[in-house]
């Protein structure tokens, strides 16, 4: 019954790790762009 439990756990770990890392990269890119938008808005107020 317990045979291959380790492989099953590794597979499930990979599934969620892939989605988590992808979500993290999108969130990081979004944060960077939001900072850029804020900076450009301030710059537009000045010029």
């Amino acid at each position, binding site marked *: *019954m317990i045979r291959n439990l380790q*492989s099953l756990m590794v*597979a499930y770990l990979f599934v969620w790790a892939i989605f988590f890392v992808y979500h993290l990269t999108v969130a990081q890119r979004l944060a960077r762009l939001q900072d850029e938008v804020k900076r450009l808005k301030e710059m537009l107020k000045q010029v």
Partner: protein
Amino acid sequence: MDKRTRDWITSLAVAALIAIAGYAALFQAPTERTMGLIQRIFYFHVPSAWTGFVAFLIVFIASIGYLLKRTPQWDWLAVSAAELGVAFFTVVLTTGPIWAKPVWGIWWTWDARLTSTFVLWVLYVSYLLLRTLVSDPERRAVVSAVFGIFAFLDVPLVYMSIRWWRTQHPQPVIAGGSGSGLDPLMWRVFLTCWAALLGLMVILLRERYRLESLRHEVAEMTIEVERRVGDAGSLSPGKAIR
């Protein structure tokens, strides 16, 4: 209800569905007689592939939409869906070998299903790489749209490969004709898992699309800053943007 609250509620609902799906796949679904526990990979391996197909279908439709309408929103949708399709197929290509090793005795074989799936993944990675090579946004969108339509041709090939050729990969258990089929409880768990992954795809797609629209906003604002600085004539655009 404002958009932010609605987004939060959707995200919480999808998180709950993912938790239910995970529980159902691990504890509720019956254990398959010949493969045992390892067969439970099926509940995320196959729905990931189906969700990936949906993502690539969105790329296909959005690419046609862009070529017909030439509005950037279609291009944003296409690239967002392409990235997600690659993520879902990365899951498929990772969980497949983990399942194959104890069942087939090998991690990988170049049969029609595995090869066409790998080619599909490479095609959409190429789609994303191609976009980085073209700097003009309009040209990039056109080239990507043509490539997005072409790449989709592999999707039916992947789906039909186990029906058309003899493969190491098992014959279809869903929509596979007489002699195929799933236990009703397995079928319900499978559908729950697919619904959870589709929900996840919608949330990630929304986020990724927002990223693309922000990119566009930054590009527009940068041009505007450069124009104003140029008009003022006192600062160089490079200095102003830095």
